């Protein structure tokens, strides 16, 4: 046998062994990590069928049963037609979460898309500067953002009321007046929506800018030659071509809106009168303040179903079967 071939064969074998070692080295930790995640999800799935509290001993197997009794679908039935405090709070939280999410999405799109279009049309010199400015809130922690907006909303020392006072208006307790509302939604909810929008819009804007940059200029030029107005170019060419990006933005914005927690916890903690109590906050309070882990797990499952349903609907409505 040719010694050169032998060496080559041996070295190929060594490479194959190294590859398989690498695959094993990466796969096994990943599988272990994933199995941990599956275990956690599985535990949450089991808990939602129990009236489980970590303070109680319960039965001999994982504390299930006994003083942590099996309730079957009882938690879900209670959510729909129960008269308990937690059932009432769940329904209020669900309603507030839907208001929050369905207000955030259109408002976000109305702000980010035109802004991205405008930024795309200005000179390269200023583009990076403005992009950085608009993206800065995204990099700021939610707690910091909440504190900034709380100081602005302060009924006595906040500058929003200072401006209102300057023009002779009546100041508003933005985060604590349960009587104040606009379009059927409490002022406190609008106040947290505004703060969240401010923090979040830079992210979508950067994604839209990337999508706009990917549209071939020839398509727009051709439309203009054919007599299309700038508005027609925007609506017929640009909007159509960024549909996949729009889908991504809509799905991600909805997901994060349904899971909003920290900014609301810091700004209002659900007040006034539960008008800003959202599902994630309710789940957190039930799990860690009131020790109703079974109920909290059931709420989490409902939130998961809602988010999945809304995402599937969005994917169906905004799907495309072409590429450019």
């Amino acid at each position: 046998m040719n010694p050169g071939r032998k060496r080559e064969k041996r070295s190929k074998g060594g490479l194959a062994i190294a590859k398989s070692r690498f695959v094993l080295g990466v796969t096994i930790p990943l599988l272990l990590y994933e199995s941990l995640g599956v275990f956690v999800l599985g535990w949450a799935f089991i808990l939602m069928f129990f009236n489980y509290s970590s303070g109680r001993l319960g039965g001999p197997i994982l504390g299930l049963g006994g003083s942590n009794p099996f309730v079957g679908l009882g938690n879900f039935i209670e959510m729909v037609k129960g008269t308990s405090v937690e059932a009432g709070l769940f329904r209020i939280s669900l309603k507030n979460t839907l208001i929050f999410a369905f207000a955030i999405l259109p408002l976000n799109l109305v702000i980010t898309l035109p802004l991205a279009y405008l930024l795309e049309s200005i000179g390269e010199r200023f583009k990076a500067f403005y992009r950085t400015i608009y993206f800065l809130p995204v990099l700021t922690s939610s707690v910091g953002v909440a504190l900034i907006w709380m100081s602005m909303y302060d009924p006595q020392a906040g500058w929003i009321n200072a401006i209102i006072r300057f023009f002779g208006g009546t100041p508003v307790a933005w985060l604590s007046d349960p009587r104040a509302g606009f379009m059927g939604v409490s002022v406190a909810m609008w106040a947290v929506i505004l703060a969240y929008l401010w923090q979040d819009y830079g992210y979508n804007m950067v994604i839209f800018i990337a999508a706009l940059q990917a549209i071939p200029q020839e398509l727009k030029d051709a439309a203009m030659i054919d007599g299309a107005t700038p508005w027609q170019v925007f609506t017929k060419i640009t909007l159509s071509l960024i549909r996949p990006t729009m889908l991504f933005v809509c799905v991600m914005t909805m997901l994060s809106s349904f899971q909003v927690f920290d900014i609301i916890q810091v700004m209002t903690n659900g007040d006034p009168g539960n008008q800003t109590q959202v599902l994630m906050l309710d789940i957190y309070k039930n799990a860690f303040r009131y020790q109703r882990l079974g109920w909290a797990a059931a709420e989490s499952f409902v939130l998961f179903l809602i988010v999945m349903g809304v995402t599937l609907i969005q994917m169906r409505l905004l799907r495309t079967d072409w590429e450019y």
Partner: protein
Amino acid sequence: MRKTILFVLVILALLLSACGGKTVEQGKVTLRLWTHTNNAFNAGYDALITAYQNEHPNVTIQRESFDYELYLQTLQTAMPAGEEADILQLFGTWTSQYYERLAPVPANVMTLADAQKLFYAAPIGGYIVDGVLYGFPQEFNCEYGGVLVNKTKFEAAGLAFPPQWQTMDDVLADAQALSKKDDAGMQSVAGFHFTSADPISASFLAGIKQRGGDYWNADHTGFTFNTPEARAQLKWMVDAVDAGVVDPIVFNDSTNFVIDAFFQGKVGIGYIGTWAIAEGRTNFPDFTDEWDYVYLPPIQGAPVFVADSGWGLTVSPNSKHQDVAWDFVKFVTTVPANALKFNIASGTIPAMPEVTKSAEIAEVMLWVAKALDILPNGEYLGNMPDRDLVMYEIIYPHILNALQGVETIDQALEAIDTEANSTFK
């Protein structure tokens, strides 16, 4: 033969040391103590840990502290796994939620009857579930009746200081004189800020008691919040708001919380427990107004009130050195000299009458001396299925709604009664 005797002696010594492993004096023992993060409290614990370790050189106690919210989460995850510390700092009212996972106090440490003689009824009540004692309190958490008063504002308004209130009407009269509004009509100084969660619950429940009613049914299996006494008390609170002593839209738990607002000069009289004194001094060192802490007169009759126990120490049934753990807990909580040190360090009202009446407390904690007359009137709140839910998600929001004009008095009482009773299901 000598070898055999030596062998037997070694075996006997080993057996004896194994049997005696549970005594405090023999063998190295390391215990963990979990507390929530509170610098004043933990300074008190550290001093007593050092004192105990000096007396018991074989014992090491490691204190681990967690932020309040994290502590709740840690307890809830560690206890089911049996991974909690040997000694746990608990708030008394939590005992009824965790008692299945706590070790009862052994009779040789202290009997229930002796504990009831040693401590005030309200703080020890939190550590008793179904007639079994699960720990000892270190403080009397009294949310009822105490108010921060701003001397500078009193004098500026031409009011007598210290206030000589005989009735709650006297308090309201001073509060009206202290209240101020800005040019736009928004309240800038609350004369009497009683609209945070704890003061609302404490004054509501005390008011029911002082008017001769009760919020428990006869056998403590349900609540009775929709009563004439409760209605009278809530009406009194609504009338106080209508009189302009506080605007509950601008002054409540989430906006202008009483401690923050008081130490920013926005409150004349601020209803809050004594724990606010240490917190105010720490967080607002630049506050220049002169102030004091005094007690309100009862709404009528005797100053009966309810209190929800206080922080104290319990022992895990999973501890391998329960006897040492209980010895430490007893040393810290039931020895008057040690309890005194802790209360002075933490700025808390002592749970033992003997300590409360001590000369040292009278010298260092003047507000405790002022409370001597009312503390014996304190009754334990009672073991509720979910105390936090009843106080913070039912009583406080509905009463605040009534004060803010979102609900009527009848609607608020009916909702409190229905929702609070639903927690028994």
